[in-house]
């Protein structure tokens, strides 16, 4: 670098840096002292930061700093604090009865908020984020319930599940009448059309209703009831309404009757604490289908 003191700009009287671009010279304008000091302090600060806080990535881990600080531990502490703050409210949820929770606006709001979050984490993969369900997975917003839609029944289903293997689980399944050789193929077609007729759906022109009625009484009525209204004790769906878990078209019904159905709802007892299960029951009940 040239000695800039030798080159003085004639207009400003300031020395230049000696750099020149297309005839324009750069004035040597020194930084204010405080600015330079601040700059050095930031460097010192950065080095101190490296030493005091975890900073350097190593091959398998990282430097831990001087006080073993970790942001993960911070989060754990904050979560524990949150738990403490929410503890009283969640305890109230744990002690109140399901009916009381629905009557108290504050508890209802809490249960709905908590239930919604937990539902999103645990139930949404099958039932959808808003409980809309899917083929084979019940819509929890409607008024049709396989195992009952009262608060207590919903709670029981969440706790123990259906065909979950839990000791208190809901049992009962749709038998495979075709696979097991109980009904012949043409009988299955007749049964399917009969079931469709129960809820007012159109049937095949060749369908023999009397034959269908006989097949139904002998094979299906034990679970679904004489009139096909279903039985929530066994999780047997009502066949006379407009809601179909697997579908109401003939092909699907033939498949259902031939192969049987045994959808599984896992038991949540043990995986979620009782207050959370309660909150979820209230949430599901308040989705709109609860009885």
């Amino acid at each position, binding site marked *: 670098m040239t000695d*800039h003191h030798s080159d003085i700009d004639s*207009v*400003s*009287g*300031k*020395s230049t840096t000696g750099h020149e671009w297309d005839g324009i010279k750069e004035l*040597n*304008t*020194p*930084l*204010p*002292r*405080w*600015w*330079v000091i601040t700059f050095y302090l930031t460097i010192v600060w950065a080095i101190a930061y490296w030493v005091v806080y975890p900073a350097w990535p190593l091959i398998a881990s990282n430097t831990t700093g001087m006080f073993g600080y970790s942001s993960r531990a911070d989060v754990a502490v904050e979560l524990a604090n949150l738990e403490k703050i929410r503890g009283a409210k969640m305890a109230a949820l744990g002690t109140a009865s399901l009916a009381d929770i*629905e*009557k108290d*606006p504050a508890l*209802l*709001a809490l249960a*709905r908020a908590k239930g919604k979050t937990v539902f999103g984490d645990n139930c949404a993969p099958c039932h*959808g*984020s*808003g*409980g*809309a*369900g899917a083929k084979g997975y019940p*819509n929890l*917003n*409607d*008024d*049709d319930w396989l195992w009952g839609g009262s608060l207590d029944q919903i709670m029981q289903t969440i706790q123990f599940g259906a065909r979950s293997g839990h000791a208190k689980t809901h049992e009962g399944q749709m038998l495979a009448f075709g696979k097991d050789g109980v009904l012949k193929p043409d009988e299955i077609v007749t049964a399917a059309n009969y079931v469709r007729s129960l809820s007012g759906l159109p049937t095949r022109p060749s369908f023999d209703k009397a034959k269908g009625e006989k097949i139904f009484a002998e094979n299906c009525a034990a679970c679904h009831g004489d009139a096909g209204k279903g039985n929530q004790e066994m999780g047997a769906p*009502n066949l006379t*309404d*407009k*809601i179909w878990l697997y579908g109401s078209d003939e092909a699907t019904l033939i498949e259902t009757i031939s192969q049987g159905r045994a959808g599984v709802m896992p038991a949540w007892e043990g995986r979620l604490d009782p207050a959370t299960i309660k909150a979820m029951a209230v949430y599901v009940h*308040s*989705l*709109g*289908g609860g009885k």
Partner: protein
Amino acid sequence: MNKTVNPKDLASDGDGPLYAAQKKVYPQSVSGTFRRIKWGLMAVCLGVYYFLPFVRWNRGLGAPSQAVLIDLPNSRFYFFFIELWPQEVYYFTGLLIAAAVALFLMNSVGGRIWCGYLCPQTVWTDLFYAVERLIEGDRRERMKKDKSSDPLKLERISEIVLKHSIWLMIAWWTGGAWVLYFNDAPTLVKELVTFQGPMIAYIWIGILTATTYLLAGYMREQVCTYMCPWPRIQAALTDEWALNVTYRYDRGEKRTSVKKAAELRALGEQVGDCVDCYQCVAVCPTGIDIRNGPQMECIQCGLCIDACDNVMTKIGRPKRLIGYDNDINIHRRQEGKAPIYRIVRARTVVYSVIIAAVGGFMVYTLATRSLLDVNVLHDRNPVAVKLSDGSIRNAYTVRLLNKSGYDRVIAIDAEGPVNLTMHVVGADSVTPDRPMIVIPRDATSELRLLVTAPAENNSEKSIPVRFHVMDIGLGVAASATDNFVAP
């Protein structure tokens, strides 16, 4: 910047390769019109800032009775008769737009009026200078004391201690007044003096004490020169008509001494009015020479006008050798034409219209806003539910806002699909299809609303549905529209 070189500057500014030591500015006290305006505005600004939190405003039982209050825990902002909710924060956007354009307007009319008279940095620095002058004396005395090789006399130490104590007290009260805007002022003062205040209040007082003390006591004009973006921006906002603090070089040059000027004038020669007394430089709080033309550092506080006027009066020359003027008039005077001033110009009109429009819109929306509001959000998953009897149900999240100071009993009606029925989860309905809900004052209430309609009467895929909410006591109503969707 077209500065002429002062050889003294070169010798003393430590023009080293790395950094330059800051030259301390010792503004001299001055009296005059602009100084009086500055004192007046300082009194108003500081008076408003320090005492506004103590102004009371009766909002009824249970509501805060502080005229200006930023209630962060409850997300409410109170400004006299106005109460703003968090979702009405756009009023602040409007305020910021109006304030920015007002700044532009000020700039196009009278240059950096903001910088010179109203900016907190200017106001507090001015106050700190006043304290410094009172204790350590005026410019010359302070310069002498700072240069003295024997600074540790008891008298000098007590002066320094006293000055910094008063500065710190002002700074402390500045931080103290700040926190009062966020809590009930008398209560908080009581808590603070008994050391029972919230930690966050002490922390904020500490932060603002430190920044006030540093910025007004030490950084001073450096804040304007190095930290503030406004000097850079304002250059783009000023135009040839804007009145700026200007040295009328057409009148001032050539500079000569009083005596020489009188001699030359007697001989009929043309000489300038400027006697090179450096008073304008001595009083300048940013330490510049206004005679070098418009400069970025100039905050246009007008103190040099006062200083120069005083000198001109003394030597019997007309005032306002330095004054609010523009370049156009300097050239016109040189050509022997009368100066013209034009405040009504395209840009000032446009700025005024923007301010009036934004202000008018805000006043209008504020005056017509409802104290009862309803927001409706349709359930997305599922959008529609088929019930066992074949009818269709849609679910909505309804949020009711009661911005008034009393509890409201609200009835909800819906109109849309034929033969609809409505149900609010968790609410007891007085009449089955007309749910009634109590919303406490100054609160919101979220409801889950189910609307069911038979499919056979409603063949459309999507039917508009309108929710009416009504305060059945007062008849105040609000409504919101959404859609009723079939699967």
